[in-house]
């Protein structure tokens, strides 16, 4: 899909069926800088499907984990960069992700995504096991991320079709009414 489509979809990525744990998205700050790039700071709230009986004991406020995301969109150079890191459990683990979307250098209707993640686990004994586990999850999630955007893009296209169909219907009605009124 062309870069503009992917970027628009990435801005509206949640909710989608591939990321059911993301339950909230908020914009903390957004501004266009002096070079025309759009910066957005967002807060993502995630819920990991903790059994409701546990929730009823510890309270729902403590079952959410939070991620903060900073994105920069350059409409001239056509790049979108997203950096996110967890703000919950930072005393245990740090997950920093970076995604960059750019138009494909040879095929203008395609977009290239580069994705990297740095995971550090604090504490000694489980660190290499947990890091390996998280690395696997993150790389399979990368594919999920692509599927998620496909889903959003399809939905956006469906919205456009619906809007066009209803606009056509409205126009036909008003043209018919105008023709009738002329008689």
């Amino acid at each position, binding site marked *: 899909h062309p870069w503009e489509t992917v970027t*628009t979809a990435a*801005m509206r990525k949640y909710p989608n069926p591939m990321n059911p744990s993301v339950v909230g998205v908020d914009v903390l700050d957004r501004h266009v800088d002096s070079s025309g790039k*759009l910066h957005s700071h967002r807060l993502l*709230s995630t819920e990991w499907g903790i059994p409701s009986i546990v929730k009823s004991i510890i309270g729902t406020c403590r079952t959410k984990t939070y991620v903060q995301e900073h994105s920069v969109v350059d409409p001239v150079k056509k790049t979108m960069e997203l950096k996110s890191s967890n*703000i919950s459990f930072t005393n245990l683990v740090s997950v920093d992700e970076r995604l960059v979307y750019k138009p494909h250098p040879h095929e203008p209707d395609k977009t290239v995504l580069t994705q990297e993640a740095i995971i550090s686990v604090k504490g000694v004994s489980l660190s290499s096991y947990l890091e390996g586990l998280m690395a696997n999850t993150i790389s399979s999630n990368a594919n999920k991320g692509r599927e998620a955007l496909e889903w959003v893009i399809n939905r956006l296209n469906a919205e456009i079709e619906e809007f066009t169909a209803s606009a056509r219907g409205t126009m036909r009605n008003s043209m018919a009414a105008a023709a009738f009124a002329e008689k």
Partner: protein
Amino acid sequence: MNSVGEGCTELKREYDQCFNRWFAEKFLKGESAGDPCGQLFKRYQLCVQKAIKEKDIPIEGLEFMGPSKGKTENSS
């Protein structure tokens, strides 16, 4: 999609609709001048910041983030 603050979801939806339209129709086409969503954003922001404080979410430098600044600053 909900907001972190339950009472802010409606304000968020209004702002999101405005932003998504501006982003796809103006910003990506190179017309970033003018921000039709400023008022909606301010109202939504106030609600969210309150919710974040209430829920004690550890966001650094939140109170220093403003429309003209991208970096956090320390106050004395």
